[in-house]
């Protein structure tokens, strides 16, 4: 029961680990270059998920403060709002992720134009023939 408790209470970490490992596996083990890129995407998404999951709190609401009139008297309880910092960090990280994805796809296009295939082993074959020439 302790173990079940351990797993369930930290489910966000388990999720991110599983997703990250799926992505990592795709990046390393798959031979199709496009699948590698997708794996990379999944990998990065998992990390973003992890960060965001650390920002949430029980019963918290989105971190936007409603201003009324004379709000100086309102005291803000941090526990009522989700932590905005990881969200902000992850906005940056998502931008980075998208840019990397863009660069990777551009490279895939260049590679496809050159070798007419996106399979790593076929490309290596072509390179071997080129080397031998």
């Amino acid at each position, binding site marked *: 029961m302790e173990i079940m408790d351990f797993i369930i209470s930290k489910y966000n970490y388990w999720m991110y680990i599983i997703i990250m490992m799926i992505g990592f596996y795709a990046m390393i083990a798959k031979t199709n270059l496009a699948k590698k890129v997708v794996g990379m995407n999944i990998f990065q998404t998992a990390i973003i998920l992890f960060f965001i999951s650390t920002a949430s709190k029980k019963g918290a609401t989105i971190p936007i403060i409603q201003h009324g009139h004379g709000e100086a008297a309102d005291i803000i309880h941090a526990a009522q709002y989700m932590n905005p910092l990881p969200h902000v960090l992850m906005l*940056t990280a998502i931008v980075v992720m998208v840019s990397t994805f863009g660069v990777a796809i551009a490279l895939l296009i260049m590679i496809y134009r050159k070798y007419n295939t996106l399979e790593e082993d076929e490309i290596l074959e072509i390179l071997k023939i080129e080397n031998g020439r």
Partner: protein
Amino acid sequence: MIQHAPVLIIIIPLLAALMNLIVGLWRKRLCYLFTVAALGTCVFLSVAILDIVAGHGTITYKLGGWPPPWGIAYVIDHLNAFMLVIVSFISLVVAVYSKVSIEKELPEKIIQFYTLFLLLVTGLLGILATGDVFNLFVFLEIASLAGYALIAVGDDRAPLASFNYVIMGTIGACFYLLGVGYLYIATGSLNMADLSQLLPELYDSRVVLGAFAFLMVGVAIKMAFFPLHKWLPDAYTHAPSAVSAFIASTMTKVGAYVMIRIMFTVFKPYFSIEVIPVTAILGWLAVAAMLYGCIRAIAQTDVKRMLSYIIIAEVGYIVMGVSVGNRMGFTGAILHILNDAFMMACLFLAAGAIEYKTGTRNVHNFSNLYKKMPVTTAAFTVGGLSIVGIPPTCGFFSKWYLVLGAIDSQQWVFAGTLLFSSLLMAVIFFKVLVNIYFGSQPVSGAHSIGGNGAVVMDEAPLSMLFPICIMAVGILSLGFFSGKIISSVIQFTVPGSF
């Protein structure tokens, strides 16, 4: 104005990169001058920063006036200031060099090249200047992405090489991000100085240990530290020559800088040496890196590939210097960052000039090259002698400190490996240099053979030759100033407990 220098040094190349697009669309030829002007300003600013830091100690610049740890702070101490100067100077020199080589290699992409180049410089300078771990990640990615793109426009194999770099580099950056995340959830802070205060109580927490592990692995990938070096030879060989020269001399060194920051600023030195004996592991991996790099380099026929494997060995030197954990070794490592930047820049620039003029990178085709390109081959020789470590070139002096550092900690294997790798480097360069000076066949590229069949001198153009000569002269003269550099800058970078 000068008090904003830490942020200006980032903003100027960033804005220049964006404006470069506009300038280029207006007049393509202006891109080069605009880039050189922007980088020249960066050099000036970095020297000013070094001057201030040498006089007054560490500068802290709060971005937007927000106090840390809520705001992002740029903290410049002796180590960063020193490296800012190195990176900006080399970027300027390579930018001057790139005019002719880029016109030949990428004639229709000049604007985009300079834009990306400026972005790459922004990223690297940002990594060096910042005092916030997440900010470092952002700049790391800026630099890496610009790097991926720049490498990909090289020769035939470049897209594939860059793709491998993308995959591995992203893993590295993501590990780094994970490490930052773990640190954040453990301490709630992203500021380096703040973290160094908050972390000591948590040194036995698994989260923090996990963070350290992720950070180190991520940085090791970026630094091409054995055994995570696989991406480097392909990427550097197939990139355009200006790009190779710049990235080879700076990217791995900046990676080493990040490692030093993590090990000694964010985490206190005793953590890296005693709590987890990372330094021992790093030391032995460094030995493997030195041997692997040298041995692989011997077998290469492509000169850029040979130099890329030598970089792996050089990174090994720097990490070894850090790992012995004493004053001498650390001094040697930092001095070696400076020396290696110059040596690699000189060698890659010379190799690029040779490729530009003769169209070949195969060392077997370099026979009698000294007749055709005396100055370039002389610079290549100086670079080679410096890598072997022959005085009075600068390479000798950093090896001096590194070996003494190893001996001071009784690490005889490290010291022996360093000397043995010098021998291997001598073998590597001897082969190439003898062919250049005493080769038996005439140099290929027959168009420069004069009327009577003798080889006519046909040097690289001046805008390429001038940077090469500056680097070579730098290698020769920096050696003599080693003592001065150490006493005025480097000795303050050594962690206090050493």
